[in-house]
């Protein structure tokens, strides 16, 4: 089958998964070993569900799947270990650059702040920091794009999709009611 060179070997789709066929990427062996350990741990846990009680027991499929996971993870570890390392890539540059770690931290921070601070302030903070950091453009551009997009998202999801997000410190309901009263008053 035709296999176009995947962009950055990062797996654009299941038709063209990432990685190299005859080389191992930085950290690939470590990931494979973690998968093996996790699979064996899950197999042990699955055994604890109902043991070998019966083939139709609730633990049968979990045991079968984790056994398959363990065997396939072991094969992956053996295969990966036998492959030479890609010499042109490093873990810090090609797999886990600072920007990715930073964004994972931002996302965790977002999830932590979402409830206490509310959707609007947390999202505004996240978008402003993220867009400023990535675009490296002026504050004017950053604020316009971030707040403009946030307003559009809030209007679409709050009004069209009626999604309720945590209000936090923003009196969102009173705000909406105020505009409803205004439009009602205009009629």
């Amino acid at each position: 089958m035709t296999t176009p060179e995947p962009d950055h070997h990062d797996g654009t789709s299941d038709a063209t998964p990432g990685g190299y066929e005859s080389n191992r990427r930085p950290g690939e062996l470590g990931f494979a070993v973690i998968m093996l350990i996790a699979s064996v741990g899950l197999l042990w846990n699955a055994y604890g569900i109902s043991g070998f009680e019966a083939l139709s027991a609730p633990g049968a499929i979990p045991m079968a799947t984790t056994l398959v996971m363990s065997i396939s993870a072991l094969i992956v570890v053996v295969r990966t270990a036998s492959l030479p390392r890609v010499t042109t890539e490093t873990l810090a540059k090609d797999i886990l650059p600072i920007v990715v770690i930073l964004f994972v931290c931002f996302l965790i921070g977002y999830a932590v702040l979402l409830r206490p601070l509310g959707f609007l302030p947390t999202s505004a903070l996240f978008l402003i920091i993220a867009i400023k950091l990535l675009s490296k453009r002026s504050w004017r551009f950053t604020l316009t794009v971030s707040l403009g997009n946030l307003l559009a998202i809030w209007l679409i999801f709050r009004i069209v999709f009626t999604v309720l997000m945590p209000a936090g410190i923003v009196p969102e309901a009173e705000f909406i009611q105020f505009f409803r009263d205004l439009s009602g008053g205009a009629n």
Partner: protein
Amino acid sequence: MDTLIAFLTVFSQPQLLMLVGLGTFAGVYVGAIPGLSVTMAVSILISFTFSWDVYPAISLMIGIYMGGVYGGSRTAILLNIPGAPSAIATALDGYPMAKRGEAGTAIGVTTVMSFIGGFIGIGVLALAAPFVSDFALKFQPRDYMLLAVLGILLVGSLSTGSLVKGIFAGALGIAIGAVGRDPLTFTERFTFDLRIMEGGISFIAVMIGMFGVSEALMQLHHVDKTAVRQKISRIVPSFATVRKHLPLSMQTSTIGVVIGALPGTGGDIAALMAYDHAKRITKEPERPFGDGAMEGLVAPETANNAAVGGAFIPMMTLGIPGDAVTAIMIGALFIHGLNPGPMLMIDQPDMFWFIVGALVTANCFMLLFGLTGIRLFTKIVEMPRAVLIPLIMLLSIVGAYAVNNAISDVYWMLGFGVFGYFMRHYGYPLGPVILGVILSRLLDDNWRRAIISEREDLGRFFGGLFSSPLSTVLFVAVVLIFVSQTPLWTRAKSIVMRGKA
């Protein structure tokens, strides 16, 4: 008569017509913007349309699916960046055409061919699904179980990656789907005595994490990448051009429908296989493949859109997804209280014909939007990644939270997002994970039914596999797919070849 009324539901209700149109329009752009995928969009959307009635929700999703599969070709041609995985093969000849100043012709041909492919796929769906569902009533629990295994195996074997990693991903998905209390015995499975795990892991959180967050994190590698935009000439292709490539489009549409209909495989694999087929059968292309051959555009574009209709066949008739997007749609139907499978086709045939009608409408909208609005299009798709990535992340969080209003779903989503990011880097396919999650319950239930009916005797179970032709075919297919990816097969093949020589 009822069938016709159900088929025309979309046309008779302006709200649904508008939603299909809006969905298709959005889908074209979602598919076209690199970094936004249809799977991602539909998985995020499912959480927002949660409170809607099933008809408007499905209308919007079908529009996005149809438009998105097509939309990826636009950026593949204009920027050499496939907007969607199904357009990877399109870039190979589309971009060289654009560089020669034939971007308009390439887009026009792509649009018309996608339309033709889409119609063939929907036609096959409409004709075949009622028969398949009748046939599916004869399926025994073991057949469903084998079909689920077959679907998960197929994704790994038809992609270019490692089958072992595909199997690992599929098994992982089944294990994720098993987390929580067993619905039959109420026994805790993989809960680690944590209350938060008892209700299981929300499959929407898994999907948004795997396809939304992991993609956004991956795109961080390409923030500074700029593409050279090409000028666009005439878009509507001449009738002679369409007629010339019609025979090829019929063949590649067939490939698309078949690959789409196989459980688990979708438009991306269909497009690559169709491209390969076109290369093999076109003896004298006007230009060499890879240098702007029109056949190199026609083949993948008809195939990936034909695969859409194909993917709905196993979804509607067996309740087994044809690809990742239909896996998510099955989830959407579950949420709305519907259970896709042969009984849905019998109890609620109007739902099936409504979906066929919505697909036809989306296909027509796709032709309309494909041949118009190119100026607006070029402006929107050039949205900088620096803005796009944070927006995808924000939408992913909102989507994961919105389903249960639970912050734990957001943490699950983030966890699976980071996990999916590493899986992508190291060549583990994500499709089998989602298929595994969706098929976990079906596999578990049917295995238990099958083995109980054989009185817990494994020997009788295997004996039963050879007592029905369908079970035998499915079992042999599963074994063959597995063996074909092992060194044993390569060795056997080389022995046979040597013998022939």
